[in-house]
């Protein structure tokens, strides 16, 4: 962008014109986020139709009925109660899966960005390829790989690691976490790649010139520079993981591996307690908003640091 254009952007009445560009986004946010959120809130604070058992949202805040929230919060803050157990389990699964995704995604993104060379395009397509297949299909494929006569067992037996097929689908946490990692890792690679690719190599050369070892250059230059991308990747994959319910359903099916999404699904599919399901959604959203807030603050801080 040239200098004169820049001046125009800042200039008087044109401000309104440029601000108008935000309108579609704002309208989108209101229509497809704020309004639906209010509907969910009103369902959580409403009742169900006595005849059809469909949710009867309570639009008037003065008549809100908080019993669903009380039920959810009580179970959430009672040690050993259903919602607390599931919530803690979900948090642990998502944390482990996110950490593993980062460990897998970072070297891959780093390699493609730094050493991809003319193969960059091909490698990127390779990374994006899994997106072409729906998440559900990829999980179903894992069922085939993990079953008794599946390739996972075949390979492990061939390599002498196992003597007999192991029942990977018997409801173990590791299978669910593996599913989550596999399902979401491409979403982690892309932002990391985009960021690492843009890092100015002269900065690294400067670090080397000043006597840093390759590892030191990575640790003190590349890693801090890529912090915003790491945070973005974490947010991008952690948020949907928190709401996931079909991965534990497909790869386990055991109550011992159920996640908060499973409980929401159970309550929201129908019946007398749809408000409880809606209240769970709202509580989960509030929790994720806190995480999101931390992300915004951290990236702002990181940007400031980089600006200096």
């Amino acid at each position, binding site marked *: 962008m040239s200098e004169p254009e820049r001046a125009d952007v800042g200039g008087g009445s044109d401000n309104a014109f440029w601000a108008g560009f935000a309108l579609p986004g704002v309208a989108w946010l209101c229509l497809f986020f704020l309004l639906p959120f209010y509907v969910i809130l009103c369902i959580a604070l409403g009742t169900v139709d006595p005849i059809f058992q469909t949710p009867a949202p309570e639009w008037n805040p003065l008549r809100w009925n908080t019993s669903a929230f009380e039920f959810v919060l009580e179970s959430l803050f009672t040690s050993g109660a259903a919602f607390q157990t599931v919530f803690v389990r979900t948090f642990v699964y998502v944390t482990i899966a996110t950490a593993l995704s980062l460990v897998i995604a970072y070297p891959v993104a780093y390699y493609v960005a730094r050493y991809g060379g003319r193969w960059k395009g091909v490698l990127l397509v390779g990374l994006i390829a899994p997106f072409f297949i729906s998440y559900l299909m990829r999980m179903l494929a894992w069922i085939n790989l993990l079953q008794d006569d599946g390739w996972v067992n075949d390979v492990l037996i061939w390599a002498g690691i196992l003597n007999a097929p192991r*029942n990977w689908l018997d409801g173990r946490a590791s299978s669910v976490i593996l599913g989550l990692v596999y399902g979401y890792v491409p979403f982690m690679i892309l932002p990391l790649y985009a960021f690492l690719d843009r890092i100015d190599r002269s900065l690294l050369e400067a670090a080397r010139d000043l006597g840093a070892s390759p590892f030191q250059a990575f640790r003190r230059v590349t890693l801090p520079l890529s912090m915003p991308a790491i945070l973005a990747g974490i947010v991008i994959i952690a948020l949907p993981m928190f709401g996931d319910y079909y991965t534990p359903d497909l790869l386990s099916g*055991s109550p011992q591996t159920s996640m908060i999404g499973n409980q929401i699904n159970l309550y929201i599919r129908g019946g007398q307690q749809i408000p409880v399901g809606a209240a769970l959604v709202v509580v989960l959203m509030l929790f994720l908003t806190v995480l999101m807030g931390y992300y915004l603050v951290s990236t702002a801080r990181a940007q400031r640091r980089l600006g200096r």
Partner: protein
Amino acid sequence: MATFHPRESRYPRREFLQRGAAGAFAFSSMGTLLAACGGGDNGEFRPPELQLARPDNPVTHPLFDDNPMIASGLDPEGGTLRIYNWNGYLWPRIKKDFAKEYGVKVEETFFSTVDEAIAKISSGAVDFDVFFPTVDRVSRLVVGKTLQPLNRDYLSSLGNVWPSLQDPWYDKGSQYTVPYVTWTTGIGYRTDKVSTTPESLANPYEIYWDQANKGRLFLLDDSRDAIGHMLLKNGISDINTENPDEIELAKGELKSLIGAVNVKLSTDDYTNLPEGKAWVHQMWSGSAVSAQYYLPEGVGADALGFWFPPDGGGTIGSDLMAVPKSAKNPVLAHHFLNYLLDEKHGYDNFVNYVGYQPPFTKLDPDRLVADGVVPANLKTAVVRQSDFDTGYVQTELTPSGQTLWQNAWAEFKAGV
């Protein structure tokens, strides 16, 4: 994975059974509520009350002046018959043949949960001609004036149905519904894998705790069926109990299965068992019939077993067909119901696609075995008319009962 088989979507249907049965009724408070809605009638207008239908408390549903049945002797409408159904619950060929015979088009739309279906129909936004409800929602649908009364003059084939289901307790006189298919909930197992069969146990339900099947034991992901078997195991035959102590007991039994055998939950019983993921699986009878088609090569149908109490004292149910009040082609819809109640069409629909059995008098276990529809060793999966006299039907629960069941189920599913 038999992922694409249409029967897979049976899940939502059963899910519905679970919730809907949790469905609810006739409570004095409901009357009050409805009265409050009625308003402005100076007490003269008494709104109809939802009634808690039970086998020992048969219900004759009210008829309403503003919801008349169609007159007799009308010609079926032309145009398009619109069906609202669970996915995979109707043989496509039936639609084609009916369309040809009547010179109309047949269009089927699917719902995934009955709550979704009821919400759409009751909103008046859609006008379907044929709808497939279940027993536990009939009272609601009638009182909500969602269904229209059926004119029996068009339903001559209803005579093919077991007499008890021509005049069922949930809809005396079949005023609003006719039966579609029936099912039982039993225990499926792999004869070539298990060391103990349910039949060999004094209490067959104890097979669920058999350590030899650890990691291979599935219950149906359906609160009514799963909790129901826990109750039956403990000799509680009221599988619609709202006694908190009994629900607590059943919940404890379910939780003990987590530690004992790491129980898993699924509604893909018809593939889990033949594919070997499960060695013992709580199972719907229709799934037991279908399972033979999913066995790996080289494994014969004799690898499958299905236990249902020989004395008929087990979980049993039936699903229904009805015509919504808002139907645009009510006469044609009556003809379609009658078409499916026809012995040949109903039988073809069952054996070629649906796997669940219509309650026809002429369909007995021996004939189904002789026809090769059901392997001899799965004869127990055939529903007999007498089973409806001895079996236990999942009926509607009161709202508080429904909450009790749902919370117990949610706690178990949380893996606490």
